[in-house]
């Protein structure tokens, strides 16, 4: 009989918690991270198929990739059959592969769970299904936790958003994939709890009287809302839950689309579909690293020779071919985070041929995410309405998740429910801690 732990498998960050001796412990599994209890949901697979997660993955990626050399080789990948009216022929298909690529970095893995089409990816000569990728990550977390606790872990309570997807079939498929991955990772008993409910359980520890509580769980991938009755374990009740697939990564994408793309030629490059396609791929974190192909380089060189926006296209070339995508997304995210504490920030990145300086204000950010704000306001009111309560009947609003710190959403909650009701939970660890309590109850 092994231990049971709670795992918050988040879009940006993850964590492992355990309930022992009437206390919740969130394990400090990433000693290289500034907050060791938080493990970045990042996986790096090297060309010899070794796996690294968290800050270690990030550091190795930087060490092996920035400004590295490339060598593209033509590789046969298969055949295509052509059937015409009176003819049939087979054509070989080749792709260009960078044979010096030292590894592959994967982030926002959880977001892939809500995708209808994503089944997995090719990493060098092996195909990794989505459940393989998640299993590798969960297995690494399990190993680290076992090594720290000096005991085998057999059961896990995994957090899940209220809705992976608005489509019930996709929602079920996502949970099935996550369940399968947990089994592959070596957990014998796997159960699930809604992430906001887990956050509520943690908050409940601090309550002395029963309350109607709205959990506002706003992380990297989704916003989850749950209205619950808490404070009396015998009368715990979920009145309503709701959610929307908007969160931190969508805000980053909005910043890139509205503020960063002009640095790479948007607005200056006209009537050149190949180059425009490269520019419009920048906000797609999964596709950008794949752009470093001889064809893309040839297109860029052609456009540069033609004298099209040379400074911007040089910057685009540098972003693509110096493996700066990860640094770029981090820079955008860091700018967004710094706007939570101040009214102004500078998005700055200076590398070879790439010089971004963008003064960015909170007012601009709020304008850029206006559409998302309206959607969030709507889902918030819908959830309150579904609970059968008026906003005034909500006793407390508990914020959790990194994006819940964005001031415009605190103001939104304050306006709706009264600012005195807004409680900040531990933004990164409350879900993990709640899952640890749930795991203890399930064991």
């Amino acid at each position: 009989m092994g231990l049971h732990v709670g795992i918050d498998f988040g879009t940006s960050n993850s964590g492992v918690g355990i309930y022992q001796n009437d206390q919740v412990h969130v394990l400090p599994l990433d000693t290289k991270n500034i907050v060791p209890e938080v493990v970045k949901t990042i996986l790096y697979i090297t060309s010899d198929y070794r796996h690294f997660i968290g800050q270690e993955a990030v550091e190795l990626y930087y060490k092996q990739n920035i400004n590295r050399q490339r060598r593209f080789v033509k590789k046969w990948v298969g055949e295509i059959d052509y059937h015409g009216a009176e003819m049939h022929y087979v054509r070989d298909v080749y792709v260009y592969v960078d044979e010096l690529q030292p590894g592959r970095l994967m982030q926002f893995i959880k977001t892939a769970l809500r995708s209808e089409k994503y089944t997995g990816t090719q990493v060098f000569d092996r195909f990794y299904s989505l459940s393989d990728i998640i299993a590798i990550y969960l297995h690494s977390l399990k190993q680290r936790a076992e090594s720290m606790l000096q005991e085998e872990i057999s059961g896990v309570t995994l957090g899940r958003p209220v809705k992976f997807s608005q489509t019930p079939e996709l929602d079920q498929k996502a949970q099935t994939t996550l369940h399968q991955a947990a089994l592959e990772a070596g957990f014998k008993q796997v159960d699930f709890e809604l992430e906001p409910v887990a956050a509520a359980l943690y908050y409940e520890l601090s309550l002395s009287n029963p309350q109607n509580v709205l959990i506002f769980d706003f992380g990297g991938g989704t916003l989850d809302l749950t209205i619950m009755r808490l404070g009396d374990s015998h009368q715990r009740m979920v009145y309503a839950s709701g959610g929307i697939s908007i969160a931190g990564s969508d805000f980053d994408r909005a910043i890139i689309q509205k503020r960063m793309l002009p640095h790479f030629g948007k607005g200056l490059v006209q009537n050149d579909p190949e180059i425009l396609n490269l520019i419009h791929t920048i906000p797609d974190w999964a596709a950008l690293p794949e752009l470093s192909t001889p064809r893309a380089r040839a297109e860029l060189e052609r456009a540069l020779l033609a004298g099209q926006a040379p400074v911007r296209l040089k910057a685009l070339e540098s972003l693509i071919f110096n493996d700066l995508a990860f640094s770029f997304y981090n820079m955008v995210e860091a700018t967004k985070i710094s706007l939570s504490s101040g009214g102004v920030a500078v998005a700055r990145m200076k590398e070879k041929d790439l010089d971004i300086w963008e003064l960015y204000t909170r007012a601009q950010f709020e304008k850029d995410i206006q559409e998302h704000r309206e959607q969030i306001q709507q889902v918030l009111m819908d959830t309150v309405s579904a609970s059968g309560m008026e906003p005034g009947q909500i006793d407390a609003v508990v914020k959790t998740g990194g994006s819940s710190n964005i001031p415009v959403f605190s103001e939104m909650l304050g306006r709706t429910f009264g600012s005195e009701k807004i409680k900040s939970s531990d933004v990164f660890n409350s879900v993990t801690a709640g899952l640890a309590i749930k795991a203890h109850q399930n064991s």
Partner: protein
Amino acid sequence: MIDQNKIDEWIHEVEERPASAALIIQYIANRLSELASREEELAAQNIELLSGRKVEEYESRITILEYQLDLLKRQLGGETVLPTEMPATKPFLELVNLLVYNPMGQVLRVELNPTDLTSGQTVARIMGESPLGDIRPNLLVTNSQEELLFLFDTGRTMALPVTNLPASSEESLDWQQAFIEEPRIKEELAAIHPIAKMSLYEACLQTSRRGFVKKIRTAFLVSHITEKYIGTGVKLPADKTCGLTFADMEDLFVMVSQEGYIFSMRVDRLPVAIEEVIHLGITDHIVAWFTAGQKPSLIFITQNGKAVHRDTSWLEPASSFKTKGQPLPSKERREAGTRIVGAAPVDEADWGVFLHNDGSLTTQKISELLATGSVPAGDKTNSILSFTSFHVPEVNK
């Protein structure tokens, strides 16, 4: 990138949160300062362009490229128009050119047929009562398509194709019949170096007898050659330049002294200004210099015909300049008078050529030399004056 819309947005931020005003001013001021210094750099570059300095630099580069093109043309036989009816192809036999030259600018060239080479054979003999005089000649083996650079100790250079040197009869090499590029007053011919492949390398290393080295980028060397002056490569009055070698930055450069001290160091660490990289004794001087390349072995030849063999990995690259060097022979042997006359990186397919003090030139297969450990000598008074190695070119069909 800063347009009116953005400025309006910043003003809007200040209206909403007046505290942001100070931050915005600070960020913009920092950026202005950064841009001002960059503008100054660009203005300086612009002045260079306007004053013509950049033009001169580009003209110099064009001259270098034209020289290299000329060199290639000469190697490939110029712009000869091929006859419309091609003659039947015959196997093309690449001859080995053995050059013997002395400080007086005299050069003897012997053409050797590689298929006739046998190990231990005397391939030529320098005739006369005193065939070598008081001066020690040097050896060089090259192919017929080479371009040779004559390097004089004054730093003067002269380039000419191998085939411009008259070939001597094998039996009787006579200095009286030698090609002569007469040195100027107080000048000596220091070395002859093949340069046809220099554009394939990143750097050229000029070496002096007293262990000084200067690294020149190949691109700059071309302009030196065009100007027929490369520099003396020395700092001390008693020193003299003794040779050149081409190398890539990651190669291991090796120098060997007569008393058997060896200096080795990666080329990228070598100085671009003339510097003493190995500190030699007062009576010692450099006799061999080369890059280790991909050859697995090093061979060192002593004046009494001993062939000392070491793996290339035996070299211990120096960590600093002015070191004493890695010793090869023991102290006892050195004190007993053992001296190195030549050294080279080799593999078993290579050949060695030896100049004996009686004027005879002999060849030997390196594989045999590695096996026997010594160069066959006629009698005990016979000693070796000079050694070099070469690779027999394959027959082109």
